[in-house]
């Protein structure tokens, strides 16, 4: 009993910091969304739901919601499918050294900072001097304005996120896959199941919980991507890549409207918590 109390007390400093440091901004977010902040001295006037009305009726906000949905769903779906396939291919390599080698190469992408990744891609997609722009124009003879066209800018954003984060899915699924019990696969092989059958009938169902973890983390993090897109396209052209986070940044520093920014980030927080609730429900149904 005394031991348990000691244990609880030793969490207090860390907990106090995290709880206080997280709850205060939530309180502040609510305050910022219900009050209007004016002037350099930042005077607060209560305005009720007026700020919400302003934001929700702004076409820019609706546009951002749609772009965030497109960017998140497209990137996550591609990353999960591609990541799972690559994980299984790597895990099936006979040589341990080669497995380690490919996993290391893959890990390089997500360890590099989002700003650096954005700038690497901004450079190779840039008109006239980028490697990919050079290849598409001179070798395949098609003019694609990767960063300058609203449609292609969205596609570029997805490509960059897939390049940046598919490896994360690979690593997680790989770890899940190599811990699957071998005897089931041997039995299936004796029964004459082909490789594809074993993958779809045995591996995939058994990997479901692992893929769910990857899916959860990727959804949360793509929703909250910011530097990747901000440094790639500055939210443009014509707000084509202005996801919610970029809108919050623009609202704070270009529109100088911190109330607007607070509501945008509050919406993003609610969406993130919704995704988390769905994942928690899934875990509960599986009985964890």
């Amino acid at each position, binding site marked *: 009993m005394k*031991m*348990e109390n*000691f244990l*609880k007390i030793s969490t207090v*400093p*860390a*907990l106090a*910091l*995290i709880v206080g440091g*997280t709850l*205060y*901004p939530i309180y*502040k977010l609510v305050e*910022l969304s219900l009050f209007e*902040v004016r002037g350099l001295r*930042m005077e607060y006037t209560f305005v009720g739901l007026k700020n919400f009305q302003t934001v929700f009726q702004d076409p820019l906000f609706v546009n951002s919601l749609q772009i965030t949905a497109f960017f998140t769903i497209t990137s996550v779906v591609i990353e999960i499918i591609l990541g799972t396939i*690559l994980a299984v291919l*790597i*895990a*099936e*390599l006979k040589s341990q050294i080669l497995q*380690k080698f490919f996993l290391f*190469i*893959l*890990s*390089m992408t997500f*360890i*590099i*900072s989002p*700003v*650096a990744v954005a*700038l*690497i891609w901004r*450079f*190779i997609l*840039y008109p006239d*001097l980028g*490697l990919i722009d050079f290849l598409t124009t001179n070798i395949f003879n098609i003019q694609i304005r990767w960063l300058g066209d609203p449609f292609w800018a969205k596609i570029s954003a997805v490509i960059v996120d897939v390049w940046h984060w598919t490896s994360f899915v690979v*690593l*997680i699924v790989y770890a899940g*896959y190599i811990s699957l019990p071998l005897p089931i696969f041997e039995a299936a092989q004796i029964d004459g199941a082909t*490789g*594809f059958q*074993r993958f779809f009938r045995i*591996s995939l169902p058994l990997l479901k919980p692992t893929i769910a973890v990857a899916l959860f*983390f990727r959804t949360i993090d793509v929703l*909250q991507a*910011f*530097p990747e897109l901000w440094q790639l396209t500055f939210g*443009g052209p014509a707000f084509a890549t202005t996801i919610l986070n970029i809108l919050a*940044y623009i609202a*704070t520093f270009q529109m100088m409207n911190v109330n607007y*920014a*607070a509501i*945008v*980030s509050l919406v*993003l927080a609610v969406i*993130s*918590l919704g*995704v988390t609730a769905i994942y928690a429900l899934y875990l509960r149904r599986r009985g964890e």
Partner: protein
Amino acid sequence: MRTQSINTYITYALLILVAIIILVPIAWIVINSLKYFKDIISFDYFGSPWTLYNYEVVLLNPSETIVPQIFTSVLYIVSTIAVVIPLSMFAGYALARLPYNSLFRFITLNFFIFSRVFPATAIAVPYFAAFSQAGLYDNPIALIFVYILRGMPLAIFMIMTFISEIPKEVEEAALIDGVSTTAMITKIILPLIRPGLAATAIFVTIYTWNDFTLAAFLAGKNAANIQIAISQFNAEQFIRWGELNAAVVIAAIPVLIFLWLIQKHLIRGLTFGAVKA
């Protein structure tokens, strides 16, 4: 083994293709960081000379150097680790040793997950307003505070999983010898999880070094970190690619070295201990 009979040649071809897709953009940046601007824009790679000019500008030119921001980032990392690791050590030990059905443990762990899921911008916008009001905008101390806030739950989770892997017998033996609980943590547990602590510290380092979002909202010129510094070479219109590429390479080198050091603990750190491998 498990799925096999996928044609091995196709597997190799695919994996090599993936490796190329990953390595070529990185190599491209490195090559172009070693070229003059005029050779970069004229797409002339084979005839043009190699140069360290861009690195000289980025490191030594007094008006363009990113060295001060590198030091600022190092300051953030050192301060964050100095607070996060000791506090997380105690909290992680407690959470690893509290009974699994403990309500306190359940609520605490879920709150950490909540703080991991809560968007960085939803932290940054209100703190921007609060810090501006309190005169703390662009103050390094404000940034250290938010880095501690974001790093701590991760550190506690990681340390907790490392401690729960230590067999209970070790502690039981020590208890019989009459060791106090504080001594237990510092004298018995600490040496056993030293590699885990190092991995945790490296993870906090990588997150702090790579952060752009929090710094973009809370730092002006004074408190800018390395990521803000390299983004200064980027622009909507005219970009100085040589300097930009050199800055990107400089920012990427330390984390690639760290990657080499923490390969074994990567998955644990990335998933908050949700997947152990």
